[in-house]
């Protein structure tokens, strides 16, 4: 509370500073700015600005979370979209204005904590304030008649207060006591820890990395950049930081709800994997599940998605196998209607390609082919066929999930309708015109692994634990001052003349505290009792 008062008094002294501003020069101006920035009022305004600024990011699609929805939004709002883009509404949490608010808030925080640390350090050594002359003026006051000697009562008063965890000073005819120093300590710990939370986040952002990789069940992932489908890392991350482990997905167990309620909802994802910490090390078996990531040599591997990869064999016009193997397809909906491209660039004399749908539980109705359940109850592959002259190998990477049809023609029937292929597992068809054949050999699942390391997390986590503890101290500790004075009985007092009177008075130093009057009365009553009574209770 003292520190808050210091803050307020600094604020109230501002008007006095303001007229002198021109003479203070730039240093004075800076000081004035600093005082303004670290004032409680500014902190409040910044807090609300932060709350307000965070809102649009929850309502407008964000690039970092779903780039597709951002693109959709821009297409749907051709006029608003570019404006949104310009002011950073598609990346609120990395936008300059959002960063400005939280950085200012933290500067204000630091500017507030540092002086308060000094104030608190002095307050820690401070003795309880001198007993006020007129105790009756304090918020709580009680008195009682006593017959013991002054020394006795003072001694008992001091020990009673010490028992209640007060810091006690015994004076000539009075006792001054104070408690609740931990409140401000908790407050300072909380605010300091918030800074450390941010430090932890910053370390994670600078030194951390995160990437994903789609791994077909039965195949493996080894931790180097070429194996990632997408990858992002902080400025201080280097490729050498990647631990040289590899993970083989042995099998993957998936269950879906088959009952009437929430039919099709996921019920189990479990991958059995073999982890090799470094080349040549003995592999170990692990189970990878949602909520149970693997920790390998400082890197964390999460299971964050799965899907289907139909196994197909494509033969070309000459009868040679042009492609054979699983093709990863991307799920489009919760029933795993999956889309992908089957490419046979080596087919001769013409290369072949297929735009394909894999449906784990296929139905064909007026909406066309679609899947009605996420598990493979009736798997089927639907495809359009494209062909064209062989392409020169450019080495340029292309999207494996979609088909670029430049240089390709769609295969059509004699009536001009595009050829549509529908295959069940084990089925194969010859393409019209002797272009070749395609067969659906089966299917496998793939899992999407997220591999990453966020080094600052322990710092943030420990800081948060202390922050919550500090917060509790600062909210629940009750700073209180109590004074006890012994004086001779006066005309106004009840009881026999010549007896002494003990006065107890108290003052709460934090908001919203109760029980002061009761505690003061209880202390007075305790002191008025004779020692033998006290020991009896």
């Amino acid at each position, binding site marked *: *509370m003292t520190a*808050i008062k210091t803050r*307020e008094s600094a*604020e109230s002294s501002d008007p006095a500073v303001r007229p002198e501003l021109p003479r203070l020069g730039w240093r004075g101006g800076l000081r004035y700015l600093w005082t303004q920035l670290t004032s*409680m*009022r500014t*902190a*409040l305004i910044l*807090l*609300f600005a*932060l*709350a307000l600024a*965070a*809102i649009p*990011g*929850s*309502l407008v699609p*964000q690039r*970092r*979370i779903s780039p597709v929805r951002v693109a959709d939004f821009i297409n749907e709002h051709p006029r608003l979209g570019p404006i949104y883009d310009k002011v950073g509404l598609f990346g*609120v*949490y990395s936008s300059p204005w959002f960063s400005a608010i939280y950085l200012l808030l933290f500067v204000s925080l630091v500017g507030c904590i540092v002086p308060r640390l000094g104030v608190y350090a002095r307050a820690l050594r401070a003795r309880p304030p001198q007993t006020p002359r007129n105790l009756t003026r304090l918020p709580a006051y009680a008195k009682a008649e006593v017959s013991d000697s002054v020394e006795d009562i003072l001694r008992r008063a001091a020990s009673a207060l010490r028992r209640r965890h007060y810091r006690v000073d015994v004076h000539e005819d009075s006792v001054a006591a104070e408690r609740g120093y931990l409140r401000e300590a908790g407050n300072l710990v909380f605010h300091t820890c918030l800074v450390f939370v941010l430090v932890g*986040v910053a370390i994670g952002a600078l030194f951390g990395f*995160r990437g994903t990789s789609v791994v077909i069940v039965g195949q493996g992932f080894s931790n180097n950049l070429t194996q990632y489908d997408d990858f992002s890392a902080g400025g201080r991350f280097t490729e050498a930081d990647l631990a040289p482990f590899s993970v083989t997905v042995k099998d993957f167990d998936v269950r879906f*709800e088959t*009952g*009437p*309620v*929430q039919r099709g*909802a*996921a*019920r*189990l*994802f479990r991958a059995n994997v073999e982890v090799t910490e470094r080349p040549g090390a003995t592999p170990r078996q692990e189970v990878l*599940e*949602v*909520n*149970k*990531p693997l920790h390998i040599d400082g890197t*964390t591997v*999460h299971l*964050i998605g799965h899907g289907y990869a139909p196994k197909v064999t494509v033969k070309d016009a000459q009868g040679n196998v042009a492609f054979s193997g699983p093709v990863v397809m991307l799920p489009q909906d919760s029933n795993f209607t999956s889309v992908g491209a089957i490419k046979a660039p080596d087919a001769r004399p013409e290369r072949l390609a297929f735009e394909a749908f894999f449906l784990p539980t296929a139905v064909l109705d007026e909406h066309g082919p679609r899947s009605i359940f996420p598990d493979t109850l009736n798997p089927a592959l639907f495809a359009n066929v494209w062909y064209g002259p062989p392409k020169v190998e450019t080495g340029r990477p292309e999207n494996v999930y979609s088909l670029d049809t430049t240089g390709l023609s769609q295969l059509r029937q004699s009536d001009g309708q595009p050829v549509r292929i529908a295959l069940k597992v084990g089925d194969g068809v010859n393409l019209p015109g002797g272009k070749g054949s395609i067969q659906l050999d089966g299917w496998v699942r793939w899992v999407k692994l*997220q591999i*990453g390391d*966020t080094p600052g*997390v322990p710092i*943030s*986590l420990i800081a*948060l634990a202390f*922050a*919550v503890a500090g*917060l*509790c101290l600062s*909210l*629940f500790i009750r700073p209180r001052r109590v004074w006890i004075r012994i004086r001779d009985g006066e005309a106004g007092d009840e009881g026999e003349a010549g007896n002494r009177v003990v006065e107890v008075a108290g003052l709460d130093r934090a*908001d*919203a505290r*109760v029980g002061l009057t009761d505690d003061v009365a209880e202390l007075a009553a305790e002191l008025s009792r004779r020692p033998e009574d006290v020991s009896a209770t």
Partner: protein
Amino acid sequence: MRYEYYSNVAFVSSVVVYVLAMFAHAAEWAAARRLGGEQGERELVNVAAAELNSEPSSTRAEPVDARNEPVSSLEESSSRSRRVEQFGRIGVALAIIGFVLSVAGVLLRALAAHRAPWGNMFEFTTSAMVFIVGAYLIMVWRAGVRWLGLPVTLLAAVGNGLAVTVFYVAVAPLVPALHSVWFLIHIVAAAISGAAFNVGGVMSILYLIKKRAEDRDKVHGYLERLPSSRKIDLIAYRFLAFAFPLWTFTVVAGSIWAEYAWGRYWGWDPKETWALVTWVIYAGYLHARSTAGWRGSKAAVIAIIGLASFWFNFIGINLLVSGLHSYAGV
């Protein structure tokens, strides 16, 4: 699915009982309108006189004179205050019945689902209402806050009512992302702190009403039965000061869980964002209370905005915005 059936019966009954409790408290308020306050007393006298006049027999038998009037109005007043007391007690008794029913509903739901009953919006709402009404009943018992009866039973009736009508989903197992010990920790903390935010918010509204009446010197009827605005403010503060660290913990626990389940501790998911917004607003409330010029009404308004943000996070984000926390299932 007998457990599920009885659980639903319990919840629907609890809504009915809460509505009845609300009526009882409304009657308590209405009866109290005629009590206390100078103006109220004057009205009371007029009414008493009018009642006497309207009964021909009594008018003739005992002509109203200046001396009789206060006596009869005093009797009238004491019978009125007895009626107020009766309605209040009925309200509390009904609230207890509603509470027992809704606890039974939650327990039966847990039995029906073979898991902690916090997997969706319906289950979260019904559990949070148990915490709210439980806190209220404890405070009635320990601190005599029957004046909270009307808003709390209203809140409970609306909450459980929405739950059984709009949010209802049949019992089902959990998706794998919820198979975690943090499921219990995160959601229980959220439900308890949410309950405390709600009670604190209701009190902040009462505070503003009472403060306005005090400032205009128009405190009578039910408002007179409320504690002083300062006292209401203190109790509201205590609820919010309890809720804030717990909410902090809820957010932290959520982000630990997110690190396990989704591989990142913070992803600006709409739910996460609004949890932070709510946190920041309540942080603002606590700062406002210790800043000159912001205490009292302004702080109470901030607490109400915080509650609005909590509700938006719960209902708006679950139903309107798509995100990883789309657990409403409706």
